[in-house]
Every structure is written in structure tokens, then in C-alpha cells.
């Protein structure tokens, strides 16, 4: 799981339970494996898709990664709402940082309840950016996407 490494997570999936369906990856359980036919549209936990050779993680996968050790920032309420609306995270909105602070690394973005809202790329030094009020984490993907998909 290259993506898990990118966000500093130690994570592995059971290959026997992971199914690739036309570039979309699903994690099934044993009960689902028994009943799922090859032509399913969706099954189990959606993990993400590969498009033009690039992996786009699902929000389910991000939530699974957020449960363990990974690069994570926790943001306060207003920053969380702006992030869901597709905006970047400013340093002043960050409450806590876990894992990498290095620029260009990917990090998960969590709200104060510890729920994963998406992920982004670190573009500023997290500590200093907080003082300058600059963008610290550039939004790559956020759960507001559920609404954007329906438009």
C-alpha cells in the first residue's frame, strides 16, 4: 500500500480479501466473498480507485488509516468546516500535529472528535505557519466530495 506509506501509516490488507473491480478496489469479508459474484458494482469496504496510474483513496480507507499511527493534523471547528468546503488548512487552525511535519509529505486531516475529514499535502512548516497565518496543508481530498459528486 504505497498510499499508506505516503501518509506515514503502517497498514496492510489481506490480499485474499481485496478485490480489484475495473480499477476500483474493495475489501471484502469472508461472508461477502462467499456471495459476491464477479460482476458486482460495489462490495464491502470501498478502498479507492486507480486512474491514469494514480491511486485515489476512498474516505473509508482514510478513516481506517486515521485509526492507527499516521501523519495527522487535528484542526479546530472552523478550520474543519472550511476544509470540508474544499479550502486549505491555515496554520492557526491546527490544534495538534502527529507524525511528519516535513513539507511535501501527505497528512490526514482530523476534526476535534478524531474523525477523518480527508487529507492534504504539507506545504508550510506547521509550527511557523501557525504564527504567520499561512497555508500549512493544501487540501487534496475532503468529505465534501460526497456532495460535489452529486452535482
Amino acid at each position, binding site marked *: 500500500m504505497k498510499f499508506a506509506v505516503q501518509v506515514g501509516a503502517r497498514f496492510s490488507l489481506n490480499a485474499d480479501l481485496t478485490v480489484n473491480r475495473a480499477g476500483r478496489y474493495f475489501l471484502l469479508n469472508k461472508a*461477502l466473498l462467499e456471495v459476491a459474484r464477479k460482476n458486482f458494482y*460495489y462490495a464491502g469496504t*470501498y478502498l479507492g480507485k486507480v486512474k491514469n496510474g494514480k491511486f485515489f483513496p476512498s474516505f473509508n480507507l482514510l478513516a481506517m488509516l486515521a485509526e492507527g499511527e499516521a501523519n495527522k493534523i487535528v484542526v479546530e471547528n472552523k478550520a474543519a468546516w472550511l476544509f470540508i468546503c474544499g479550502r486549505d488548512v491555515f496554520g492557526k487552525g491546527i490544534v495538534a500535529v502527529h507524525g511528519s511535519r516535513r513539507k511535501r509529505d501527505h497528512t490526514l486531516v482530523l476534526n476535534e472528535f478524531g474523525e477523518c475529514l480527508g487529507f492534504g499535502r504539507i506545504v508550510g512548516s506547521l509550527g511557523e505557519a501557525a504564527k504567520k497565518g499561512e497555508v500549512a496543508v493544501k487540501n487534496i481530498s475532503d*468529505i*465534501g466530495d*460526497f*456532495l460535489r459528486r452529486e452535482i
Partner: protein
Amino acid sequence: MKGFYWRLVIVRLMSGKEFFVDRYERLGWKLKDVKPRQAIRLNITNIEGKSLEERLEAIGVEVEKVPFLETGYWVLGSKVSVGATAEYLLGLYSVQEAAAQIPATLFTDLKGKTVLDACAAPGGKTVQLADLMGNTGVVVALDVRKRRLAALANHLERCHVSNAVVYELDARQVSRLKLKFDRVLLDAPCSGNFAADRNWFKRRTLKDVERNARLQREILAEAAACLSDDGELVYSTCSLEPEENEVNMDWAVKHLDLRIEEVDCYGDKGLTEVFGSRLDASVEWCRRIWPGETQGFFACKLKKRESKL
């Protein structure tokens, strides 16, 4: 040409507000102004009720428990759209009409079962079933329209459902899956009702109702064939028309070796006399909901006859 003209006249006569309102009066209900209240359903797998209430209050959403639902809430007022909050996007609740929350709750013991959601998109009830199952067992969700499967998949991902498998398949062909189901939810495609569609009276004719009723019977027959011997089938529609509801249940009892189970839930008894025809007495155990606080709805729980066991 003459025949075509008369057919047109007959269709016009069997449609329109007056025609349907007269039918409702003959069934014992007088038309009134109704405005169904907005409702949400807590996803108990993802959050506890108390915590959700507090979080919603903090963002300006005032809710109140729906008295006849375990996990349903009326939305009393909201400063934001309840379909666009962080809590919604995190799958902590779903926006689901109160009456539509009833069918999935009529099953006994869903945990670990193999369940069919025969006409699943856009997936509100699929998610509810998975939630009641605590993500155990398997929910097989079907829909014939591929366009609607994307909405269903979004719904499953948003609510972190992990026990569902979705197929693009006509429910009339479910036996192709070669599976027997412990529980079948058949929320059948129907004519809908005026409380959920302000142009309903302009758009619907009795012909539509009859066409839908035929389709529903075809799906019912296939669903019953895939039901395990001690399985349960819940049939529901959001139609007020008896042809799609009580009359179909009467047909199921007489033709499909099914019997109606008495249920204890919100709603009136099913009609046992429809426009002069007497139906099987057990049809009164169905539940008919005339529009009011909720939209119009119909639900019925069926099991296989003991002789088949």
C-alpha cells in the same frame, strides 16, 4: 382513430385530482393540506443518539425524537442544510423520511443474516439495514438503473457500510444470483403520492397505477421464490393506491404461499374492502399511512406458510 379517441377519453376520466381524491374518500380518507416533516435517522453503528443530539445542537440543528421510531428524529429547525453538515458527510446520520424508516424495522433479528434489498437505490434503506445488522451478515442490494447505483455507492461509502454487495440487476431476475435470503426488503417501485410530489395529480393516471401494480407482483413473485423457508419479506411502497398495496398483498396471500404477519408499528390497519371487493382478512395486519406528519406509505410483513416448512 375512433378507438384511440375513446381510449384517450377514458384515460382522462381515470386521472386528475378529482378522480383520485374521490377514490381516497371512498377508502375512508378525506384530502387535507399536508406538509410532511423533515426527518433524519441516526446511524447507530457510527454514533450514539445522545452524542449526535449534542453535536447537532452545537451547529444549530434542533431535533426531536420521532415517537414511533427508535433512531428517527424530526428536524424542528436548522440554521444549516441537514444534508450538508460535517456530521452528515461523516455518515453519523442519514436524511430519511420518517415513514420510509419503518419497513426495515419490521424484521426480527437481522444480525448475521443474508438480506436482500430488492429495489435499493438510492440506498437509504440499504444503509439502514446494514446499520441494524451492525455491519454483520450480508446485504445484497439490487437496482436496475445503473445511473442510480452511483448514488447508492456514495451512500454506502459515506455511512461506512462494509457488509453490502451491489448489483445492477432487475429484481425480477434475482434468482440468477442463486441465493436464498433470510430477509427480503421489497420497497417496490410505485406511483408515489401527492404529499411527496406536488405535481402528482397532474402526472398520474389509473393506468400508471395498474402498470406499477403488475410490475410489483412480478417482483414479489421472484422475491418470494428466493426467500428461505423461515424467512421474512417486508413489502412497502410510498403509494396510496390500494392496487399497489392491499390488493397486491391479497394476491400474494392467494398465489405465493405467503401469509401476512401482524406488525406493531405506526399507521392504520390495511383496508380489507377496496371499491366493493372483499380482500383476505389478514390484509388488515398491513399498515397504511395516510399523509400527515409523514408522506403516504404502506408496509406489510409476510412469511412463508407453515405447510411449506
